[in-house]
C-alpha cells in the first residue's frame, strides 16, 4: 500500500471510531448530566415525597410532581385508548382484507401523517379539536370547559402516534408466513377466523408491544400537547378539565429555572423521568417485537 492509501485508510477508520464513540456516549452523558442535576432535589426532599407530593410552589421549596405525572398518564393513556383500536383494526384491514392498491394508497398517507411536525398538529388541535371539545363534548357531559383539556391532548396525540403504531403492526403482520394463513383457510375457516387464529393470536404480544411503544412516544410529546392541554397547576378532575403533563412543565418553565433555588433540579428531574420511562419502555417492548419479527423471518438467530 502506498502512503496515500494508508493515510486515507487510517483517516477513514478513525472517523468511524469517533462517530461510533459519539453515538454511544450521548445517552450515557445525558443520563449522567440529568442525574447530576436532579440528585440534590431528590436528596433534600425525599424521592417519594417529590414523586407523590401534590403541592407545586417552587418559591417555597414545595416540589410535588403528582399533578404532572397524573396529567401525563391521563393524556397518554387517553391517546392509546383512542388510537390502539383504530390502529389494530386498520392494520388487519390493510394487510388481510384490502386490495394491494389500497395499501399502496395508504402508505403515503401514513408517511405524511408521520412527517407532519408536532406544531402543526398543535395548530390543528387548537382550530379543530379544542372548539369541538368545548362546544360538543363538554356540554354533552354536562360540564363546562374551555376546550383546552386532557381530552383534547389525547385526541391530538392519538392521531400523532397512529402512523408510528400502524407501521410496526403492518411490519409484524407481514412477517407472518402465508402458509399459516392458507393452512387456516384450507381448514374451512372464514377470513375473520383465520385472522383471529393465525394473525392476532400469533402476534398478540407483538401487538401489545407496538401499542406500548406508541405510549412511550406519546408520553414524551411536547409542543402539540402543550398547545391544547391548558397547562394549569392542578390535578385534573375530568377529561374535559385541563392538565399539565411533564414535557409541558419543562417547556413552559425552563426560562426561569435558574432564578429559584432547586427549580432547575426539579425540571431536570422531570426530563430524567421522561428519559427513564421512555428508555425502559422502549427496551422492553422492542425486545418482544424483535422476537416476533425475527422468528417468523426464519433466517435469524
Amino acid at each position, binding site marked *: 500500500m502506498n502512503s496515500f492509501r494508508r493515510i486515507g485508510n487510517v483517516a477513514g477508520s478513525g472517523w468511524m471510531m469517533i462517530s461510533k464513540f459519539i453515538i454511544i456516549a450521548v445517552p450515557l452523558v445525558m443520563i449522567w448530566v440529568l442525574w447530576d442535576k436532579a440528585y440534590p432535589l431528590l436528596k433534600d426532599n425525599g424521592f417519594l415525597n417529590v414523586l407523590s407530593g401534590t403541592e407545586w410552589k417552587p418559591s417555597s421549596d414545595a416540589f410535588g410532581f403528582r399533578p404532572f405525572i397524573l396529567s401525563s398518564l391521563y393524556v397518554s393513556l387517553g391517546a392509546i385508548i383512542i388510537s390502539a383500536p383504530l390502529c389494530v383494526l386498520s392494520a388487519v384491514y390493510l394487510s388481510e382484507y384490502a386490495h394491494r392498491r389500497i395499501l399502496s394508497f395508504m402508505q403515503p398517507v401514513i408517511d*405524511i401523517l408521520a412527517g407532519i411536525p408536532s406544531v402543526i398538529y398543535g395548530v390543528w388541535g387548537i382550530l379543530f379539536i379544542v372548539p369541538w371539545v368545548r362546544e360538543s363534548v363538554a356540554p354533552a357531559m354536562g360540564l363546562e370547559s374551555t376546550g383546552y383539556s386532557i381530552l383534547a391532548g389525547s385526541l391530538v396525540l392519538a392521531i400523532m402516534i397512529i402512523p408510528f403504531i400502524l407501521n410496526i403492526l403492518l411490519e409484524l403482520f407481514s412477517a407472518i408466513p402465508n402458509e399459516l394463513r392458507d393452512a387456516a383457510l384450507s381448514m374451512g375457516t372464514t377470513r375473520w377466523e383465520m385472522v383471529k387464529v393465525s394473525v392476532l393470536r400469533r402476534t398478540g404480544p407483538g401487538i401489545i408491544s407496538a401499542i406500548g411503544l406508541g405510549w412511550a412516544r406519546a408520553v414524551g410529546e411536547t409542543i402539540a400537547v402543550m*398547545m391544547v392541554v391548558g397547562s394549569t397547576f392542578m390535578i385534573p378532575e375530568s377529561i374535559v378539565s385541563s392538565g399539565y403533563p411533564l414535557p409541558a412543565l419543562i417547556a413552559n418553565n425552563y426560562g426561569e429555572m435558574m432564578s429559584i433555588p432547586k427549580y432547575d433540579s426539579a425540571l431536570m428531574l422531570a426530563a430524567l423521568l*421522561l428519559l427513564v420511562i421512555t428508555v425502559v419502555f422502549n427496551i422492553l417492548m422492542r425486545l418482544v417485537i424483535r422476537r416476533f419479527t425475527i422468528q417468523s423471518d426464519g433466517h435469524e438467530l
Partner: protein
Amino acid sequence: MIFSTLVIVGALGTILYTIIAKGLPYLNWDMVSSLPQGGYYFGKEGGVLNAIVGSLYLALGATALALLISVPVALYMNVFMRRRRRMVEAFRFFLDVLWGIPSIVYGAFGFTLMIAFQIRTSLQAGIIAVGLFIAPIMIRAMDEVLQTVPNGIREAAYSMGCTKTETAFRFFMRKAAPGIVTAVLLSFGRAIGDAAVVLMTTGFTDFIPTSLDQPVATLPLAIFFQLGSPVPEVQGRAYASALILTIIILIISLGARFFSRMYYKHH
C-alpha cells in the same frame, strides 16, 4: 375495519384542510419575503422570512452534522460488523431505543450543558442538539439501505485488494447513494419540524443570523409564539406560517419517496 382506516385518512384530510383553509387567506408575498417590522407582533407590517431562513439554516446545519456522524457509523455496521450478527443486532437495538428518547429531553440536556459552559442560545447550540437528536434516525434509515447491498460487491472489492475502509467508503456508499439521500431528506424533515429542542437551545430573533453564535428563529417556534398573541391578525399569520411549514414538509416527503423509488428501481 374499513371505518378505522377511513378515520385515519379523514384525520389527515381535516389536518390538511384546516391548515390550508385557515392559512391561505393570510398567506401573501410579504409573509415569505420580509422580516418582521416594528410592531409586527401587534398586527403591523412584515413577514416570517427570519423564521423560514432560520429554519433552513438550522435544519441544513443539523443534517450536515448528523450526516458526518451517521455515514461512518452506518458503514461500520454494515462492512466491519457484518460477520458479527449479534453485535449488529444489538447496535441496531441501541439505535432504536435512542430514537425513542423524546426531543424535550434532548432540549433539557442541551440547555443544562449550555448553562454549565456559559453558552448563549444560538444557532450552533441548536445545530449540535438537533444534529444529535436526528442522528439515530438517519443511521437507521441508511442502515436499512446498506443491508441490501449484495455481499458480492464486498467480496469483489476485497479480491481487488481493497481494505475494509476503502470498501465501505468507495463502494458501499456509492451503491447506497439514493438511499442515503432518502435518509438525509427524512432527517431534514425531522430537523425542520422539531420544536422542543430548538425552543430550549436556539432562542428567537427577528433577524436572520449572520454568524453561528447568534440566536435564530425557526418556523415551529414562530407559529407557536404568534398563536399565543391575542391579535387576530397575528394569529392568522401563525396559520399562514403553519401552511408554509406544511408545504416544506410535503415537498421533502415527496422528494424522499422519489429517491427511495429510484433506489429500488435500479436495485
